[in-house]
């Protein structure tokens, strides 16, 4: 019997990692995720572990929610695969940070109240920021700061929402306002809201906070900005947890919210368009994360049992094949040191294992029959069709075709085939190969033997099995869709010629627009403001008979300059004056 959040095994175990070396460290890094996986399944069905927090409020640390089983399992499994892939690297902080990150994600899935969910949510942000930053390049340092800033902003917005709602619940006399049940803004709760008081804005703030983590445009540019800057093993970890935890939380709190259907459609298309234009191989895969999460978000928006099952199953499958793809890309980067498609090609000569694993991942993300993507993604499309959501269905189907185009073919084609660049690196070290093969086997195994996954979905067999993926019609239509979009790819190859370019995204606003705004508008204003301050005080000191030398160092921004003692005293008088005037005239 487990009486604590299983994720804590990873979180606390991570703190041990820096103190051990060599084989012990390796063994520990593989054992911790496995122990977590076992612990997840040892949590009793009726678990309800609570601790107290601030006068009378209780946090529920361990509780099974409907989608907990799927997400907790895959998160632990992913931590294992990632640790195996990272076994040979010797970065000191990356793996512990990644374990904190993964462990917190597991803790989020067991949270029974909004506060403990939020706490682990923020802990994930800390862990993942450190993982990004462990890329240990100047670019990763800056990207890490941007990543952290976006996530803390998201956390802040979410916290404001949570508090506003707690406040409203408190006012309503609710005994334990932290319980997740009070935060389930399903179709009845969220869409029907009116703007009467501050509490009503809460769901929107919480939703924005989650969507930032889910990388929904326009909040999503952090993903393609930061993930490719992490180390080759770091990106593998990063791809798995943040967005999928958001999917989990959306599923808990916002299932059936119509807005999410449109958000998901937008994400699916956005991911494809940007991936088509991208040159960096890991950034292509990063955009395809957004695209795939779009399917899940759409499924949550649809909100039927089948749609939610589909979203959960797709998250499970997606984590595996996306990690596999990024492992393949990571191995290429590790062996060649190159990350741009324009520098790569022809690697099939010497990296067969990497190539085959990459291709299996590519087939899985494209939802080829007998791969994991097929048994999960089609469930979401089916749910859209069953609910007669024509636009959603059309977009999702087109997006399925587009995925094959950009991730299914473009990535392996440009990295392993196309023009031979004369690179002849061997396959990566054994642990990286092992991790890839493990996940590749999982991709295929899930595609063929899917019943165990279906059994742990949020709504298993309500009235017999909900969904049968392998009907002739399904298989044929999917093959038609994919193969013909493959034809489109090869016909359009001349147009898809890779260029040394990037595509601007929303991060342009904080990377370019805000700095320019600061330099050309705000800074002059602040400077003038500062000058006026100086003039004001110099004049008032002149008035007092004190002639002071004006400071001629123009390079500084006056507003931030140290106050001279005289100015400080004048300011004190000024405030005394203000308080007196206010007192007399109020």
């Amino acid at each position, binding site marked *: 019997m487990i009486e604590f959040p299983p994720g804590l095994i990873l979180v606390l175990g991570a703190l041990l990692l820096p103190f051990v070396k060599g084989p012990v460290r390796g063994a520990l890094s593989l054992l911790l995720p496995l122990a977590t996986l076992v612990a997840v399944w040892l949590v009793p069905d009726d678990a309800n572990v609570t601790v107290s927090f601030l006068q009378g409020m209780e946090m529920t640390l361990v509780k099974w929610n409907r989608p907990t089983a799927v997400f907790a399992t895959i998160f632990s499994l992913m931590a294992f695969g990632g640790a195996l892939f990272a076994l040979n690297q010797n970065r000191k902080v990356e793996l512990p940070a990644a374990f904190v990150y993964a462990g917190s994600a597991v803790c989020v899935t067991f949270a029974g109240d909004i506060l403990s969910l939020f706490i682990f949510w923020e802990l994930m942000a800390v862990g993942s920021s450190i993982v990004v930053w462990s890329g240990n390049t100047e670019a990763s340092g800056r990207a890490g700061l941007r990543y952290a800033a976006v996530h*803390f902003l998201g956390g*802040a917005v979410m*916290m404001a929402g949570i508090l506003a709602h707690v406040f409203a619940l408190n006012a309503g006399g609710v005994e334990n306002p932290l319980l997740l049940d009070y935060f389930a803004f399903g179709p009845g709760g969220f869409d029907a809201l009116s703007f009467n008081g501050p509490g009503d804005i809460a769901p929107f703030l919480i939703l924005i906070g989650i969507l930032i983590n889910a990388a929904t445009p326009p909040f999503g540019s952090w993903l393609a900005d930061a993930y490719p800057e992490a180390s080759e093993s770091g990106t593998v970890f990063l791809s798995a947890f943040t967005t999928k935890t958001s999917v989990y939380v959306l599923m808990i709190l916002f299932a059936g919210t119509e807005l999410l259907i449109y958000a998901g459609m937008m994400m699916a298309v956005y991911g494809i368009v940007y991936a088509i234009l991208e040159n960096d191989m890991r950034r292509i895969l990063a955009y395809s994360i957004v695209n795939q999460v779009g399917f899940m978000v759409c499924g949550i928006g649809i909100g039927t049992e089948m749609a939610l099952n589909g979203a959960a199953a797709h998250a499970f499958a997606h984590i595996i094949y996306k990690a596999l793809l990024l492992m393949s890309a990571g191995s290429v980067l590790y062996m060649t040191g190159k990350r741009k498609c324009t520098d790569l090609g022809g690697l099939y000569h010497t990296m067969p294992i990497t190539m085959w694993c990459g291709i299996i991942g590519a087939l899985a993300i494209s939802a080829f029959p007998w791969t994991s993507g097929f048994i999960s993604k089609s469930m979401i499309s089916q749910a859209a069709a069953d609910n007669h959501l024509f636009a959603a269905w059309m977009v999702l189907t087109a997006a399925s075709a587009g995925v094959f185009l950009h991730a299914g073919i473009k990535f392996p084609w440009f990295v392993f085939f196309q023009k031979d660049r004369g690179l002849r690196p061997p396959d990566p070290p054994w642990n990286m190969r092992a991790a890839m093969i493990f996940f590749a086997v999982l991709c295929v195994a899930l595609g063929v033997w899917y019943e165990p996954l279906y059994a742990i979905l949020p709504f298993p067999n309500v009235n017999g099995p909900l969904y049968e993926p392998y009907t002739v019609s399904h298989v044929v239509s999917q093959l038609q869709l994919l193969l013909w979009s493959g034809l489109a790819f090869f016909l359009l190859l001349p147009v898809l010629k890779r260029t040394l370019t990037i595509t601007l995204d929303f991060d342009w606003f904080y990377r370019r627009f805000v700095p320019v705004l600061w330099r050309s508008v705000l800074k002059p204003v602040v400077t003038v403001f500062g000058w006026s301050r100086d003039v004001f005080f110099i004049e008032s000191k002149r008035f007092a008979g004190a002639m002071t030398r004006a400071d001629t160092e123009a390079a500084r921004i006056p507003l931030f300059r140290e*106050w001279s*003692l005289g100015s400080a005293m004048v300011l*004190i008088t000024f405030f005394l004056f203000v*308080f007196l005037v206010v*007192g007399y005239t109020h």
Partner: protein
Amino acid sequence: MIDIQANLPALIVVIPLLGGVLATFTGRGILPWAWASLVTGATFALTLRMMATLLQSGAPYISYELGNWPRWWGIEYRVDLLNAFILLVVAGVGFITTLYARESVNDEIAKDRHHVFYAVWILAITGLLGITITGDAFNVYVLLEISSLTVYALIAMGKDRDRRALTASLRYLILGSVGASFILLGIGYLMMVTGTLNMEDMHNQLMRLANLDTNRTVLVAFAFLLVGLSIKMALYPLHMWLPKAYTYAPSAVSALLAATATKVGVYMAFRFLFGIFGVGFSFYAMPSHLILLAMASLGIVFSSLAAIRQNNAKSLLAYSSVGQIGYIVAGFSLANPDGVAGSIVHIFNHAVTKGGMFLALGAVAYRVGGTDISHLRGLAKRMPLTCGALALGGLGLIGMPLTAGFISKWYLVKGAMGSGMWGLVVVVLFGSLLALVYVWKLIEAMYFGEPTGRSAEAKEAPLSMLIPIWILVALSIYFGVDATFTGETATRAAAGLLGGTP
């Protein structure tokens, strides 16, 4: 034999007062430090006992009449939950920083002045404790000056390392004296109206005034006190004495000041605004809460921006302190239970967090010889425990969950929402984002890049420094995970304040 239990409130001030004077006779070597540790330790034990006594007795407060004079004639010491809590913070941090001070003071202050240093050091703590415990308005002023004068001297002792400590100290002396004089004037005007110096008596007399809201003398007293207190607690933009003073003071002194001095300033504001003038006058009759909120909000934003621009880690933390005072002031200006509780709990949380960080920087200065960002570069490889403490403290400043800072943020945001101040919610959350940037600056320096110069040969700080550092940092984590004690004490103290008991 003295009855310790009965004379507890007096002993909390008398023991360090005598101890401080006696410290001048301790000569050289390790003795001054040992004596100081003994005295501050004993004082801390007394404050712990005080808190326990108060909680056990269940009474709203414990009153003690000095020299057995009736309290409206003599001086009354009065301990309620609020100041028992602040006493605990001051004495606790005082004790821990004293333990830490030995190596640091050996390094930074000439050998023949150690006994003077520790004498002044203990007296500074005495002054702060005295301000907190007394129930007499004029006594506040006297003890305020005791703590201020000693602090000026302590800051000036940083001159052995950097002569700018002298100018910083003089600057603080002038601004601080003006502030204290304003407080003195304010107390004078209050005395003209009420004819008494006992705080509770003052409050009762004021409440008896028919035209309280328009009484000019009361208004003038209010204005003088508010400005004087703002200077003392370093409320933006009247904080100008603080950054340099914190930067150039000896390491241990920076930590002590950052953790206690401004906090006691805030405590005085509690006593005057809530206790004497009363919530009704301070926050409803006068629109002063709006001015305070504006100052606090500007302080949070601009000081954090200034902190980002610093190239010296100590000034960075100093500006961050100004910003954090903004949170505290914003909290009590809301004058609702959550806001005031947030303010009180943040006094504690910020004291341990920032105290721990300044101590860690002191260890850096001890090993590397300076606290510029360039000194910190790559230092995590050499001093992992010290840098780890700084990083954890930094997370506390941002207000990450599982650190004490989060608890404060929780209360403050909830308080702001309670008053419908959505602007303040934005400011508080934006402030923590800015904190992320300046904390990141520290973390990036420590964990990124290669150490150069003296940093490359630095060893981990000695245990005598590491233990106090980690006690404070561990407290800041502990009270983030289990905030039952701080949260409940703050909530009850806030209820006491809002109920109008002085």
